[in-house]
């Protein structure tokens, strides 16, 4: 049997980080931390959706609100697709795009960044412990 893909340490960490970014809590799910993953997924996605509900898709503004957009993209790469729609300007706005909605979606993104970093750290720690054992 060939070496496990986990044996390539850097690749393993990159995969964990990428999955954690793609789906909030995905990195911890990959590390078999199911409860943690479920909590992260539920609360980050809920916060992001509340932000979208409050301010509509206009909260994602890659043109005029780049710092906020950078934080929002941390939710998932799928936000980039929403940013493309928002940049086209062909959407109805049902709320005020700034303020609460922007804060909610951006904080959700920053929380997911925290989860991504934590997932990579846990994966690294486990690999180091397995190597020592």
């Amino acid at each position: 049997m060939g070496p496990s893909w986990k044996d390539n340490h850097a690749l393993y960490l990159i995969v964990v980080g990428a999955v954690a970014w793609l789906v909030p809590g995905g990195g911890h799910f990959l590390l078999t931390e199911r409860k943690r993953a479920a909590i992260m997924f539920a609360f980050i996605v809920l916060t992001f959706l509340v932000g979208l509900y409050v301010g509509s898709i206009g909260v994602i503004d890659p043109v005029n609100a780049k710092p906020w957009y950078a934080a929002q993209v941390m939710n998932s790469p799928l936000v980039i697709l929403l940013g493309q729609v928002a940049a086209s300007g062909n959407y109805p706005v049902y709320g005020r795009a700034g303020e609460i909605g922007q804060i909610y979606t951006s904080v959700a993104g920053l929380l997911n960044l925290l989860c991504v970093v934590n997932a990579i750290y846990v994966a690294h720690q486990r690999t180091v412990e397995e190597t020592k054992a």
Partner: protein
Amino acid sequence: MRVGTDPISMLWLLPLVATISIVYKSTKVGYIRPLPFAKETAGLFGSIIVFIVVAATILYLLAWAVTGPVPALLDKSTF
């Protein structure tokens, strides 16, 4: 959705603080068991709220002083 600028709209921070507390604690605790996790989260939630209230009070008092007593004192100064 309409979000006002009245004091009640400040309550929008509560769900956000709750989410921050829950997600942050989910990365920090060793094992997730419902009751200890709830206690840890409640502790962080409370400390963030207390800090916000203290900061808001200080800012309110500063704004009150700058817009009220301080200009009045300057007007009546003996200089």
